[in-house]
């Protein structure tokens, strides 16, 4: 295989996943939490695609395609929720969402 081995792809994917985790846990804006979630999903896509390359089969790529569709749906619902929250004049801060708390 020309270029770097699969290990390097996996390491990039692992670092990217941790960056996304940091974003989800550290940021308070729900929009940036969604953006960080996208980073995490894409890191897993990179791992799936490099494993598909390793084994020479298409299954991993199909899985990555399904992950893309799920990510698109998640963005639609997540952004819809954010807009609905902002229309109710609530603060856009993930720490201050208390409406659903019993």
């Amino acid at each position, binding site marked *: 295989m020309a270029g770097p081995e699969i290990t390097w792809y996996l390491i990039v994917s692992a670092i990217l996943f*941790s960056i996304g985790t940091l974003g989800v*846990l550290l940021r308070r804006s729900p929009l940036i939490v969604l953006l960080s979630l996208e980073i995490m999903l894409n890191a897993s896509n990179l791992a799936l695609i490099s494993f598909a390359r390793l084994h020479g089969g298409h299954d991993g790529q199909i899985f990555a395609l399904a992950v893309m569709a799920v990510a698109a749906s998640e963005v639609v619902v997540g952004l819809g929720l954010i807009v609905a929250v902002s229309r109710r004049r609530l603060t856009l801060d993930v720490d201050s969402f208390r409406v659903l708390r019993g």
Partner: protein
Amino acid sequence: MGNFLVWAVWLVAAFACLGSGIAVVSFTNAFYSALALIGNLGSLAVLFLLASAEFLAAAQVLVYAGAVMVMFLFVIAYLGDTAGLPFRGGGPSWVSVGAVVAATAILVEVVVAIGLKAGNALSSVDEIESSFGSPGEIGRVFLTDHLLAFEITSIVLLIAAVGGVILGTRTRAEDELDAQGAAGQETYGRA
């Protein structure tokens, strides 16, 4: 020579990917974060290409950098100044320390697992044909071996579209809130 070129492109794409990922997390302005995420997705598409996933690289650019990010930018523009909030306030609290520890733990765990378990198994890459990852091959596999996944994906997208419409419709409570807001502005204007 060809190998060197692949390495060079890979290194540039990998560092662009990680750098823009850090930028997404650290910008306080949500608009800049979204723009950095476009760069992140673009450099990831280059990595997909180098791992011979041609169709997925194209889909990444079309679906993510195109459609999804445009939607993000629209919502950020709609929300205005309220979109970006800084990090959890007041210096390093136990929450942020825990977040950093958790992220580092995931990273170390994955790298150690790769190093220990996989070891030499990762260096023996299977030979592939030149059509590997091409749209034709992906389509053939998707519509034969993975037909169920294809159908379920379409249902998931349909449900998400319906959910988006339901979340987007205005409720009576919001109309009342708006009426109150308009009334409040009127009295403010008279005073």
